[in-house]
């Protein structure tokens, strides 16, 4: 006698079909509901940036503009043209570019070499060194703001793009090291041993053997660093002001400065401009971005 009684099979077949259909619809409904929650702000930003202030006051967040008004975009990017007090994004956009590029390149390179040494040239205590460096990923930066501000002052590079580059390189090293170390750990050591038998030295092995197969992790690291540095506000706001500010600081200043009338369309256009580079990177290379987030985080 079996424990499960043999049921009416035809009935069961019907029941499960209907149930499955209902479940499927529910699933899609919830997923689309959440998708709207996530898309909503982007939609609002874009739509608002193309409206006139009149349209904004008359309509709601959701109403489409009557026609595509690019004036706010021009103002956000190039200003109103009346000289002093007129803040616009263009110079700060370029500040950020000038800051991001060297910072990403140098921090990635240092991370790669450090990850290389820690995995392929083991020595006693190297795990401790890795831990030592890893710690830098987790510290709240408030704990270093004060001494860093003074140090930049001493070095004469406070309130400069160079200063920010230095800061971002230093605090990017723990992350870039983490990424490369985790990647190189899974590359078989036999590759290195074979190269050493063939007579290759330290740097040759790195440049001729490891680097060529490092493309995936380089992409992940570059995307991660680019996003972190472009999106930074804390360091930018603390260590620079005025002319040398990066774009997020400029954006915040623009939005906060309530001169006379708030121009929400300009605010939205500015926000989009500030967000576009990382958004484009994400859309184009999204899966590497995600890979970086999940692997770096999960591996701890």
């Amino acid at each position, binding site marked *: *006698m*079996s*424990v*499960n009684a*043999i*049921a009416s*099979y035809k009935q*069961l*077949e019907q029941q*499960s079909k209907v149930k499955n259909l209902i479940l499927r619809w529910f699933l899609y409904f919830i997923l689309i509901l959440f998708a709207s929650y996530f898309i909503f702000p982007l939609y609002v930003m874009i739509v608002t940036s193309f409206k006139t202030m009149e349209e904004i006051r008359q309509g709601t967040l959701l109403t489409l503009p009557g026609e595509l008004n690019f004036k706010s975009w021009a103002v956000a990017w190039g200003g109103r043209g009346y000289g002093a007090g007129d803040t616009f994004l263009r110079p700060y956009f370029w500040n950020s570019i000038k800051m991001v590029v060297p910072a990403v390149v140098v921090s990635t390179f240092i991370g790669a070499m450090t990850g290389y040494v820690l995995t392929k040239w083991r020595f006693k205590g190297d795990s401790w060194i890795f831990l030592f460096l890893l710690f830098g990923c987790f510290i709240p930066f408030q704990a270093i703001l004060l001494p860093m501000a003074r140090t930049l002052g001493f070095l004469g590079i406070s309130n400069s793009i160079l200063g920010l580059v230095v800061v971002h390189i230093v605090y990017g090293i723990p992350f870039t090291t983490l990424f490369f170390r985790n990647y190189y750990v899974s590359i078989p050591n036999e590759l290195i041993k074979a190269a050493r038998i063939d007579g290759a030295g330290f740097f040759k092995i790195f440049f001729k053997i490891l680097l060529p197969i490092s493309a995936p992790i380089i992409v992940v690291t570059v995307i991660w660093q680019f996003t972190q540095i472009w999106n930074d506000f804390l360091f930018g706001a603390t260590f620079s002001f005025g002319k040398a500010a990066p774009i997020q600081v400029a954006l915040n200043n623009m939005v906060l400065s309530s001169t006379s009338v708030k121009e929400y369309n300009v605010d939205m256009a500015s926000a989009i401009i500030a967000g576009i580079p990382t958004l484009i990177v994400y859309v184009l290379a999204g899966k590497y971005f995600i890979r970086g987030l999940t692997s770096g985080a999960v591996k701890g």
Partner: protein
Amino acid sequence: MKTLKIEDLSKNFGSTEVLKKINLEIDEGNFLVLLGPSGCGKSTLLNIIAGLETINEGNVYIDDYNVSKVEPKDRNIAMVFQSYALYPSMNVKENMVFGLKQAKTSKEKIEEQLKKVSTFLQVGELLNRKPSQLSGGQRQRVAIGRALVREPRIFLFDEPLSNLDAKLRVEMRREIKKLHQTLKTTVVYVTHDQTEAMSLGTKIAIMNHGVIQQNDTPEIIYNKPNNTFVADFIGSPSMNLIKGNLVQNSNKISFVAEGSDNSIQIPMNNYNFDKKIEFNNKEIYFGIRPEHIHFKKSNENDFEIKLRADLSEYIGHEQIVTFNYSNQEILAKFASTIKIQMNKEMSLYFDLSHISLFDKSSKERI
């Protein structure tokens, strides 16, 4: 009433035909092994029987009920997986009674079943442990226990021994055999290991490329393979397949190996031909197993042949010697105590009552 019946079953994955018009029947208490190389469709067939895969064409019947569209839980089957698939966050006891709980079985019945099965499988002391704290063999037993408590009509095994090391595999194989003998359950067992299949099964269905090549008892499959695929797949080392021709001389039919000078003609008159064929100059494969080639005459009908020994592999209890037959390699199995001289001709005796002939082009048995 057949416990399991598969009727004209076909399954595609995209454009790939994985199962082609499979027909199969099992009586109660039988141990059917689905045997074949990877990719032959055996696991897919098992999954279809379990209800874990959909069917493109055909039907599956359990106890004459058409279960083709029925959920796995309602088919009265249980399955043991290659990786055991024990629930990691539950202990052994919870793992074993999970299915019963889902079926809303009474507490008393659950206790009763649990006690019965855990005693039978000797996993009583493991009940409170988590799967990560068990050895491979213990996990195996718990997985079997999980299937046993549900008293299903059919037990399905999906290569359960593949993850074990060689020694453990042999042990567990015997335990599974003992289980089957004691409980007399109906089993469908998937494996790619022909030794496992031969030792465990009461019936073996050998599959290749989605088609059942032969469905018979182990003895018949071993002695009368249906085609060269089966002949080659079963046996270790596999059956020797010697290329050559059948020659008819008035009423005498004989086999001449390819490339030989007609001097050696193996008489085929006593062979049981399955069909009537044109005998003269028929291109065939002459099949004889290594264990049926002797160094001493043991039967009246043994055919004596002188061949040169080229290589000998010592296995421990036996040796496998490679001989040159008309520039084709054939292997013979002897006891390792026999001294074979390399590169010298010696007398061999083919046991003609144990040969198989196959059509060269169709590869089918004749």
